[in-house]
């Protein structure tokens, strides 16, 4: 059969084979990631890493495991901002924190934490609200390099102006500069912000639920998954939350079409903050 009959391009076949290879050899499972974005990222990897084809990447990564971390950086790493969408963090502060205050101890899961911008935003928010001492944060990602970056908490100084403005708009009542030290062209965030954070290698695709979370924040991760995988992950979140616990997702994400939507009720609808039903 020729391509016109199968309707599948050679590149699409190569991508499927590469994703199968990554799963079978390394147990990294990107097979249910939204395909258009994966394709863009792999074509970028092909060009920038200097391969002639996606098949050449497959051969290289199967025979040389040192290629894997470089490829993972293309497939997983997100550029985010601290306090991205300030109104989300304002809603957490004004609407969710009053409920969280009623618990003697708290567990917060930042799922798909990437380089840690969302984690530090929440850690600063919880410190400002006086809840840091009773909270344990879990920051998880599948990319070891991203976890190391999150653990380090160092960001280019030229991004700090944006972070500072976002923080102010989110209703922050400290100064962002109270939480980092400028070091040449870098901002090094305070160790105290991550003293109570557990960094962990965890895959939303293949790993099990985390127990008894009061808040899960997972923003702009679900858009990278196909419907089927979104369903799995939302089910995982439902399982991981205490009854009455909160789930925050990206401003263009929704639980509306999820098979597990009935586990959740809108809490702050505009900000995509949901509450786990009690039953």
């Amino acid at each position: 059969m020729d391509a016109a009959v199968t309707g599948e391009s050679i590149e699409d076949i190569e991508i499927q084979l590469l994703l199968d290879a990554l799963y079978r050899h390394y147990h990294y499972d990107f097979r249910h990631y939204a395909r258009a974005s994966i394709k863009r990222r792999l074509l970028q990897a092909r060009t920038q890493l200097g391969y002639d084809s996606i098949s050449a990447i497959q051969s290289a990564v199967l025979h040389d495991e040192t290629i894997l971390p470089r490829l993972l950086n293309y497939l997983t790493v997100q550029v985010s901002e601290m306090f991205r969408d300030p109104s989300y963090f304002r809603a957490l502060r004004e609407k969710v924190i009053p409920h969280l205050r009623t618990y003697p101890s708290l567990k917060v899961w930042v799922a798909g934490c990437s380089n840690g911008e969302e984690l530090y935003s929440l850690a600063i928010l919880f410190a400002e609200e006086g809840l840091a001492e009773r909270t344990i944060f879990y920051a998880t990602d599948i990319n070891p390099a991203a976890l190391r970056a999150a653990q380090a908490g160092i960001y280019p100084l030229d991004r700090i102006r944006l972070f500072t403005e976002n923080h102010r708009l989110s209703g922050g009542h400290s100064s962002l500069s109270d939480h980092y030290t400028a070091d040449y062209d870098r901002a090094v965030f305070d160790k105290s912000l991550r003293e109570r954070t557990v960094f962990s290698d965890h895959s939303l695709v293949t790993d099990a639920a985390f127990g008894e979370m009061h808040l899960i924040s997972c923003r702009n991760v679900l858009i990278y998954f196909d419907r089927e995988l979104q369903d799995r992950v939302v089910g995982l979140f439902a399982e991981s939350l205490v009854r009455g616990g909160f789930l925050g997702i990206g401003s263009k994400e929704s639980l509306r079409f999820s098979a597990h939507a009935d586990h959740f009720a809108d809490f702050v609808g505009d900000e995509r903050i949901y509450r786990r039903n009690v039953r």
Partner: protein
Amino acid sequence: MTLQAVVIGASAGGVQALSQVLPALPADFPVPIMVVVHIPPRRDNALVDLFARKCRLAVKEAEDKEPIASGTIYFAPPDYHLLVETGGTFALSSDETVNHSRPAIDVLFESAADAYGPGLVGIVMTGANHDGAQGLRALCAAGGQGIVQAPATAEVATMPEAALAACPAARAMTLEEIEPALEAMVER
């Protein structure tokens, strides 16, 4: 090949340019139209309200995983890339900016070229950067048809000029010529 979808990219001066083309389309225009306009990354999408008032076609912001419907004009949300999946649904991404833009015209055009191949027409309008040039080239390479707002008639000629340079097969047109050209491509 029957026209299956239209993609449009516009930047500086784009709202005015689109205002001459989109409202002219009839209510029974039978294919989806997807639009990227470079806009600041704020949350509320004023474009949807603006064009919903002016257009006879339905106008909405594209949502992640939404099935793409005929006879609808979709705008990319601010601060997200808009992509088309081969199954005929939208996908959003918050990947880094492309050509300093998110949403980027190239990202929409390249993914739509994969999904629709020769059934796609792409239009690059006024703008002060080079976004859309690579996308239009990919679109034409996949068998689609390229249209570029004639640079001399564009508020800012940089983007149309870059698109024509990258994709010489594209036809330059005035804004007045674009809507009749689209009408001529659809089957009823």
